[in-house]
């Protein structure tokens, strides 16, 4: 951001102070993520930068914690990863299916009581997680689904759908309904119209909702803490236990993998957002 040439010196100084403050805040935001990388390659089991590491001595580094993560006998990371992926996969599918349907209904201009229904549908996002956890636990215990995969998947569907509803509704808000009417006038059945016309157009919204639902499930710990039994442990639960008991570098190895994963998800979410804007942009040029 270049300053105009007529800027007075004191404002110039102030401007640079402002930039310095912003830089510091950006460092505060992003640096904590980067401290994990080097430490996960540490040779020691203490979570501090050893003298060797500060000298960049190769002896200070090793991949032993990554080996421990994959092959370690004590660490149930493999089981946890399998469980997490399994739960997140089905929770995402469930959330996307009923969330997209609901979003399509909500975006119809004939929908009655829109405000109150929208409030109910996105309530799991607003209610503090701890309260959701207690409520969902009471329900699952009553119907006998506590400490089962089914129960956890259902719980994650509850928590994931608001994101799908919001992203799909947002995509549909710019949706040109004349295209579906055109399809209907040409004799297409409603379901056919939805699959061939509506869905491809709102797909970016659906996928980004799916990403949110996936991340929500994959990262969720509060509700799972109430619901999970010993055998349905997940990655967040393992991390939670590890962080509470002893911070081992293996956790940092897992954390590094998770950061790489979230970077990939961020990039795809960003690409989807741009594609969605482009798709909607076409409509505006009509």
């Amino acid at each position, binding site marked *: 951001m270049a300053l105009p040439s007529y800027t007075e010196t004191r404002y110039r100084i102030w401007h640079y102070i402002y930039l310095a403050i912003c830089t510091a805040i950006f460092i505060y935001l992003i640096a904590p993520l980067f401290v994990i990388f080097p430490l996960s390659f540490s040779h020691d089991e203490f979570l501090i930068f050893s003298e060797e590491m500060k000298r960049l001595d190769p002896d200070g580094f090793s991949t032993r914690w990554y080996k421990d993560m994959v092959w370690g006998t004590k660490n149930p990371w493999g089981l946890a990863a399998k469980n997490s992926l399994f739960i997140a996969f089905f929770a995402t599918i469930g959330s996307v299916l009923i969330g997209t349907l609901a979003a399509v*209904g909500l975006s119809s201009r004939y929908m009655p009581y829109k405000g109150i229904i929208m409030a109910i549908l996105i309530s799991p996002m607003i209610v503090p997680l701890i*309260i959701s956890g207690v409520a969902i636990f009471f329900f699952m215990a009553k119907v006998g689904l506590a400490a089962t995969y089914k129960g956890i998947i259902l719980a994650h569907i509850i928590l994931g759908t608001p994101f799908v509803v919001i992203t799909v509704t947002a995509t549909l808000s710019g949706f040109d309904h004349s295209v579906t009417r055109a399809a209907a006038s040409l004799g297409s059945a409603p379901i056919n119209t939805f699959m061939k016309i509506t869905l491809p157009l709102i797909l970016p919204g659906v996928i980004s909702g799916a990403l949110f639902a996936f991340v929500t499930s994959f990262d969720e710990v509060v509700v799972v803490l109430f619901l999970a039994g010993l055998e349905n442990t997940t990655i967040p639960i393992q991390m939670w236990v590890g962080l509470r008991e002893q911070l081992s570098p293996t956790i940092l190895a897992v954390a590094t993998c998770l950061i790489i994963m979230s970077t990939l998800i961020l990039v795809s979410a960003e690409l989807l957002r741009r594609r969605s804007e482009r798709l909607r942009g076409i409509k505006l040029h009509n």
Partner: protein
Amino acid sequence: METETKQILTSDGVPLEQSLKKAERKNKIKAFLLVAPLLLFLLITYISPIAEMFTRSVDDKMVTNMLPKTFKAMENWDGQELPPEEVFASFLFDYTTLIKAKTQGKLDQRLNKEKNGFSSILKKLKRKIMQQKLHTKSMKKFEEGNYKEQIISVHKRFGDVAYWRAIKRTAPPYSIGKYLKAVDMVKDQNGNIVKVEESRRIYVQLWLRTLEVAFFVTLLCFLMGYPIAHLLATIPMKYSNLLMICVLLPFWTSLLVRTASWMILLQQQGVVNDFFVMTGLVADDNRPEMMYNKVGTYVAMSQILLPFMVLPLYSVMKTVSPSLMRAGKSLGGTPFVSFWKIYFPLTTSGIGAGSLLVFIIAAGYYITPELVGGASGKLISNSIAYHMKQTLDWSFASAMGLMLLTGVMVVYWIYNKIVGIDNIKLG
């Protein structure tokens, strides 16, 4: 003069208005059917359990269920003088049943809360009943008839009407006792609501701390979020896209990963302390404790919630035209004045949205305070989890949860008035 409006008919001969209404109703039903699966699913698995938390939190049927005959007998007792013989007999019967089922302990505890010293005389009664069962000769057994006198002979306090009134007080199936406990109050023996002893007051402090942490985290997020949102909104797109990653990457990264990195940074031998020592701010042997206290909670929570402040602020600031600031300057305002009088007022809706969002999330935060908060950084949500898992006092956890929920709902209602639910944007 006669005005006759000719009804417009559709091709089937049905009036158009009627036909249109029918079509609209059909569309309404169609739209509703699409929403119905999710709505029903949430109502059953989510909304109704939250409502159930309420019945759980006020439920007080325990004593009534444990002493069914006694309460039946007490129906006709006015509570003025000692209850009639019938009550004593039923009480002895109910209590003997409880002893056989070995569940009398809970009753003792509950009644002792209602009236101090109840537990000890009940224990005496228990001993007497047990001896009767064992047929030991050392003590006189209960004999048929005149139970009133016999029970009073076990302990003279059974002859004090206050104890019987205490039992009668537990008769209503609902009580607000758990809510009173959550604000350090209690119903005393005369039924007045009073504060608990000074040494046992913990919850009011916990609520205040939750408010304090949520408030200061919101303030910190605002102070840090405003400048960077402004920077992101004013620099050219190609730079802002890059810098946006710094905001979005933490947003997408696992909460536990971010908390873990703060635990590493803030520990005594951690990077932040190393930095302080290196710059000479603190002595090597005098490294400050930055984790397991409120400092840790503030530092970690502010970083974790900062994206929730930046994103709404950014989307509002994007809409403020830069020419407004130039106009302000050209009319003679200094940069500070034009910022304060023009730019800032235009971004208040973003400030409101971001602050309320951060406040709502912070007030119900659980994970980070639990891991880095230590004893002095714990919030109300940690206490809810504690009572759910450790003490198993689920009705108390429900009561606190609902109080927290009510608070959040009020803030959310304000949020909805200012921003509108439909305008929540993600990413």
